[in-house]
């Protein structure tokens, strides 16, 4: 075998050896592009889907007060989505579907309920015999009212609902322990 053949052989092997790597790289790149632009899966991008009614809610409750597109506003928007479309945005934590009549937090609560609950949280619950935080109450709702599973307190499914409650409480200018006078 002359040196030229050996070179071709080596070159051929190298090309063959490189092909799977290039393919793997292409697949990874394609996956990243698909995940970011086309998948629609929230975890892959920082945008929050804009559900029907958000713009009116944002105007009504003065959410823009915190900035046009800050982290806080986006978290509140995610809280809005979770609150009104729980089955769609927290499918891991509920067994409910779009066909169920009670499939979201909004089926039982109004945003004002949430705000008043927030400023009255971290208090003793005589029924349970313990002090309950707002997050504990949200987690209990996931388990009982929407027949699902318990998120951790760090999960956006809990955190963003608290941020929504905080934004509404700010709009209503509530202070700690505020009592609801109108119904």
């Amino acid at each position, binding site marked *: 075998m002359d040196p030229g053949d050996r070179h071709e052989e080596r070159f051929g092997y190298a090309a063959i050896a490189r092909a799977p790597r290039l393919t793997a790289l292409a697949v990874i790149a394609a996956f990243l592009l698909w995940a970011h632009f086309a998948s629609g899966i929230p975890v892959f991008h920082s945008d929050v889907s804009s559900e029907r009614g958000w713009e009116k809610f944002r105007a009504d409750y003065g959410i823009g007060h915190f900035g046009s597109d800050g982290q*806080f506003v986006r978290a509140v928007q995610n809280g809005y989505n979770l609150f009104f479309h729980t089955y769609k945005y927290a499918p891991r934590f509920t067994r409910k579907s779009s066909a169920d009549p009670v499939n979201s937090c909004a089926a039982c609560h109004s945003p004002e309920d949430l705000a008043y609950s927030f400023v009255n949280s*971290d208090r003793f619950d005589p029924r349970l015999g313990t002090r309950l*935080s707002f997050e504990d109450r949200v987690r209990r709702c996931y388990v009982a009212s929407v027949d699902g599973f318990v998120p951790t307190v760090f999960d956006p499914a809990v955190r963003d609902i608290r941020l929504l409650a905080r934004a509404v409480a700010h709009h209503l200018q509530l202070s*700690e*322990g505020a009592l609801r006078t109108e119904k």
Partner: protein
Amino acid sequence: MPKLPGKLFRVTVLLVAFGSLYLVALHKHAEREEIRKAAVALTPGCTEKLGRYGLTPGEQYESPYVAQRAAVRTVARGYSEEDVRAVQRGCNIVDDSQGTLASEPWRERWNAKRFIRGSHASCDHCHRGIGDLQDASGNRLPGSNSLAASWTMGDMYDRFTGLLLPYELRQMQCYINSSNGFKPNLADDVIRDVTAYSRFLSGALDLKIANHYEEQGIDEIPASATLKQGDDYIRGEALYKDKCQGCHGLQGLGLELNGQLIAPAVAGPNAWNLQSRNNFYFVSTILAGFICRNMPPGQENTLQHQDCRDVAFYISNLPRPAGDRQGPIAALQQQLFMAVMPPLLRLSGSSKAPPPPLEHASASTPEKVRVENAE
């Protein structure tokens, strides 16, 4: 067959070990429950503060402070006996984190000391006035690092961490960096009781959720609030020796008399670490603001902005512990400095000349920037 007794023995040992751990956990839970139900012995400061704000169990709560200051009645949800005890414990932790005033610190402060390195750090050192500093007339002081105002602004964007930082995580940061200690669990009573106290304060002062108040955070002093002559170590050292050394000591190691803390350490193993926001090299504006606003005691607001920045710069150059994310090499280096520098400085410790006169910017019209989340 002969192997069976050996296997049986190992399984039994494992079961006994796990069973014992389970029993210990049950015992600890019962103990915590018992502490939650026990009456709270308040520190003198908390007795005065909570008494003035009328904290008693009841269906409704009316703040005497608001009634007196604003001449309006604000009726809010009252506090149960359990809630009152949580607020009292939280106040005690803020006022006396190390439990030096407690007969049983491990019970009365949830042993908050286990999350703090050293014997000096206490929440009240930065969050003065037990987290609610007021003047003699009861006016809340701007830039006083109020816990109440900090609670109302919880969950907001924090420019240092880049997070929407919940109030509980802020407390964790205080334990890790400003107390150079360890992170409590989010659900630990140490955290929850301080939250309960902060929430009570915000109710007593009738602060509204997510409103910005003057007393939140610290008045930062950026270089732009000075004549921009540069932060000077030598000038800072001379000023420190003139104004601060009497209480905080030559090396900044603090002052204890008969086991009582007179002035906390600003350097050395009992001080905040390099990753604290008090550290000039991390955030140059906060410690300077704190010094101008609070130091020296009895002569607050007398130092010029450049003086405060110089002193802060000098203090931050004294050896102190490394932060928990700086790795073992930095930790070793800082430990070495802390061991070697004090004796060396003691040997060469001759007093320096007084600071050169400085043309100051007007102290009465400072450009101040507020920080919302100083630890």
